[in-house]
């Protein structure tokens, strides 16, 4: 039981049937997450990050969706669970933090009721104990005067405070996995690092595994064990965080890293951007999805799709999908 990984995602496919055709939002994603580890999933808007996190949670709408592959949580296939079993997993074993704390809290319910709800439903706590636990939880996520906040409504709290509350709610029942979907995107820059530090503290303190979904490589740098870079519904590079930043192989990763602003550059330095647009997920380009925008693309990049592979220039945990990886002399 304990030696198997916490989460195994195998060849996960999520396609949406639309009037325009099939949108390949998630197109064959596999990864493994061990207990207490953190994985960053990075990609542009529309690369399928959010759909991936919702697919793992099993939160997709029932209609016009093609789902394939398996999500094994502690060896259980989540897609085989019925609605009732799924509800026992949600909240109690997998928690989720959403992007916008303005909309992810119920505007007409007091903070206290929202925090205690999960405690009472999943852990069967009495009202008094649930309130005590909730106060302690709110304090532990850095909310001053938690007793007073319990009686307030969400609109009386600032954005950062609200995100702290949603984190408290998500971790209330001690989930083994926390999925944070762009947890800082809707927040002020000054509050972002506080929230990220908080997530990291809680993750370590409770030995939770965490999936941190973001479009910002700067967010995951130094906070995750591994990073998976997504492009057009696929993982195009996956590596331990440090190695990804130093020895990226996929040109897309390289372009992403180059487009992080650096404070040590002189002012007015032009920030390199990635030319072109993300591919249309209904009609993805032939060959490598990134080839139309790739500065290194060659002929076969436009015809043959590279598999996610590893080679002897990188560690075993490092995989990339590119025929002509960055930093490796072209063979043959």
């Amino acid at each position, binding site marked *: 039981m304990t030696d198997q990984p916490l989460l195994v995602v195998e060849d996960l496919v999520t396609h949406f049937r639309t009037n325009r055709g099939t949108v390949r939002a998630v197109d064959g994603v596999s990864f493994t997450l061990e207990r207490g580890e953190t994985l960053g999933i990075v990609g542009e808007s529309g690369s399928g990050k959010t759909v991936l996190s919702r697919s793992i949670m099993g939160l997709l709408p029932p209609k016009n969706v093609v789902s394939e592959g398996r999500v094994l949580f502690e060896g259980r296939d989540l897609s085989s669970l019925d609605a009732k079993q799924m*509800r026992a*997993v*949600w909240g109690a074993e997998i928690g989720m933090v959403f992007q916008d704390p303005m909309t992810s809290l*119920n505007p007409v319910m007091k903070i206290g009721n929202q925090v205690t709800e999960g405690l009472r439903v999943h852990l069967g706590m009495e009202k008094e104990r649930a309130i005590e636990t909730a106060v302690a939880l709110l304090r532990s996520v850095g909310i*001053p005067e938690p007793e007073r906040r319990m009686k307030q*409504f969400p609109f009386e709290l600032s*954005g950062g405070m609200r995100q702290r509350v949603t984190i408290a709610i998500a971790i209330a029942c001690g989930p083994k996995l926390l999925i944070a979907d762009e947890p800082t995107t809707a927040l002020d820059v000054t509050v972002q690092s506080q929230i990220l530090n908080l997530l990291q503290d809680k993750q370590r303190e409770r030995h939770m595994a965490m999936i941190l979904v973001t479009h910002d490589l700067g967010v995951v740098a130094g906070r995750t064990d591994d990073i998976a870079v997504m492009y057009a519904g696929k993982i195009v590079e996956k590596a331990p965080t440090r190695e990804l930043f130093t020895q990226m192989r996929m040109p897309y990763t390289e372009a992403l890293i180059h487009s992080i602003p650096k404070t040590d550059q002189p002012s007015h330095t032009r920030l390199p951007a990635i030319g072109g647009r993300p591919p249309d997920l209904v009609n993805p380009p032939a060959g490598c999805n990134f080839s139309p925008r790739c500065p290194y693309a060659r002929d076969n990049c436009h015809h043959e799709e590279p598999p996610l592979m590893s080679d002897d220039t990188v560690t075993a945990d490092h995989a990339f999908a590119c025929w002509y990886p960055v930093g490796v002399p072209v063979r043959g």
Partner: protein
Amino acid sequence: MLPLANAPVPEAAAVEASPRRKRKLGFFFILSLAWVALVIFLAVFASVLPIPDPNAQKAAINLNPSLHHLLGTDSLGRDMFARVVYAGRVSLTVGFASIAIGLLIGGAMGVIAGFYRGRIDRVLMAIADVMLAFPALVFALAIVTFLGQNLRNVTIAIAVISIPGIARIVRASTLTFAQRDFVLAARTLGASNRRIILREILPNVAIPIGAFSFIAVALAIVGEGGLAFLGLSVHAPTATWGGMINDGRSFLEDHPALSLIPSAVLFLTVLALNFAGDALRARFDTKDVSV
């Protein structure tokens, strides 16, 4: 290392710094509520208050207002003030009870349709459309004719007429809330559909619908007045506003007050309910407030 990263949470101060911006409900709102409260108070306590019997024909007919008869007497010598007050009982009972029933049934239909969508939504909305397409007056006529002319049946008739409209409005409101993240968040916390509907959706839907129901009550009161005018509401001699307007119709030239007084009371009550409903709707319209 950013100095901010470990600083004690500075955003706490912002909470106090931005006091809740209250939109004034205004003078007319207070006035409207006061009028409605007065009408309700008189109707509820009519039998306890020193108000003459509304059906006693003791006085002379068509008296002008005096201390004895605050609003004069009608063509049968009945006290007009007493009749207006007692008529309020019928109008308010029908108005509030029919909308309460309408909210219960129409609201349930709307929430279920808007939350579950799909086939159940199509079936429920098809039912609502059929009900909407049926002429309301003919329906009310049929109910009152076949089931009998009494307070209960008038209430039922107006309640049924109100159901499809309420169902549609509640459904629309439910749709906007069902898409919100907090519903998804509740789901990720393991909340069942029932729990989501009762705890997450209903309290949110209740606010705009509560404001709207004032206007619905006003419409129901007008509807009752219309039925009474046609002689389809409760039996004479029980006073109703619509019935009183009808009674005074034959004396419009000589004694216009007989029709004008109940008309004015009906008008003011409906106007007050509309005002109150509108003010509340504007107050709770959260579309421009990011809560």
